[in-house]
């Protein structure tokens, strides 16, 4: 739960346009709500949680990072890997 809240508040910091209306199942990438710099900040946020750099070209982002729930699940998986 803490990770979900941390990520939602991080999105609000990265872009004021993302400060309202993000739920855990809100499509972020496929809807186009998150793009450009916020995506790179998301990458750094994920790397900070898993403790290592991530080769982004190996990730199917629309499938694995589209919602808060999916991103947190991704982080949990990567932490265990």
């Amino acid at each position, binding site marked *: 739960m803490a990770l979900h809240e941390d990520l939602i508040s991080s999105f609000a910091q990265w872009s004021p346009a993302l400060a309202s209306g993000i739920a855990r199942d809100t499509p972020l990438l496929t809807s186009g709500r998150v*793009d450009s710099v916020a*995506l790179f900040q998301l990458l750094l946020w994920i790397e900070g949680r898993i403790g290592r750099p991530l080769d*982004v070209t190996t990730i199917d982002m629309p499938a694995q990072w589209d919602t808060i729930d999916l991103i947190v699940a991704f982080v949990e998986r990567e932490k265990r890997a």
Partner: protein
Amino acid sequence: MSVEVIRYDPSLKEELVDFRRVTYETGFPESRDYLDWKYEQNPYIGETLFYIARAGGRIIGMRGMYGTKWECGRERDAVVLPCADDFVVDPEHRNSGVVTLIMRDALADLARRGYDYVLNTSGGRITVMSSLAAGWRSAGAVEPMVRRSTPERARQVVRARVRRVPGLWRLARSKSANLISSPEPFRRVDAMGRVATPTGGSIVAETMPRVAAMALLVERLPYDGRIRHVRDAEYLAWRYRNPIRQYRFFYYEHEGRVDGYLVLARYIECQLPTLPFHIVDWEGASDSIRAELLQCATRVARIAELGTWAAGLSEADRAHLARAGFEPADMEMRKRGMPCILVKSLRGAAPESWSLHGTRLLDPARWDPRLVYTMHG
């Protein structure tokens, strides 16, 4: 606010140039010439393809698609593909769906025009991230390399230390600063004269491309069928007219014939961390000819920081680079699989099936990527 995506027409040119100048980070004063060259004078797509987002009576975003022509396989089958570049969105409209709106419109239009794939060979980290999020795939990392002179290495160490000292970071080079690159390396090249080589040939450097001789050399050298840009005289003549770059061409000549060449490129103005100087193409009839060209160019030009790509090079050429002092660069980006060449199918096919004339697009081993094929060159 309602956003519409429209096609380019010449009446939008002034507004577009102004928008790009104000919004694009580099702020190149050559914006108009650069856009004219890349899109209007492009040899492969006759129509200028800009996808322009407007809202509130003004431009808030744009993406360009310029023509490229790739070949692969034993038969050198060639195909024209659009290449995405110049993605600019007004900062006020980022993370608002404008990027997605522009790209969806662009990709649908390119599919209607009959193209099967679209490429991006020059994307920075933000564009790469946005593209991957939209379903693009990497065709392979390009492995940037850099050769730093001894004084430049010392400066790098000092800068790194300064950045760590509170309050002194302002003395380090700002990452957003525009940089006018030194003209001295090319002055040294212009004063070089003809240099005899141990293999019996000689090397000269010139300011203009010998496009016919270069194309002929590429044509007669063995070709392994990997995906590469067509380098015929038409392409080379267009390519080396890039108005934001200057070039110097080193030719290896033997008995009146060009048996090798190496091209140095200089950004007159660039923004860190982009390096001002690169080797953008390098060909030779033998390992020793390529080695002599590299040795000559680095010895004569004495460039403080010279970049190139290692992806696609043979083991022999990688060894030549290492002996000349080149080292892997952009390590933070390399760990993340960047920079890379991006591909997207316009037909909705599964990525594992993406191919050009039977050559798999997402297999890095099937590519011969070079800086000259990209707008970094």
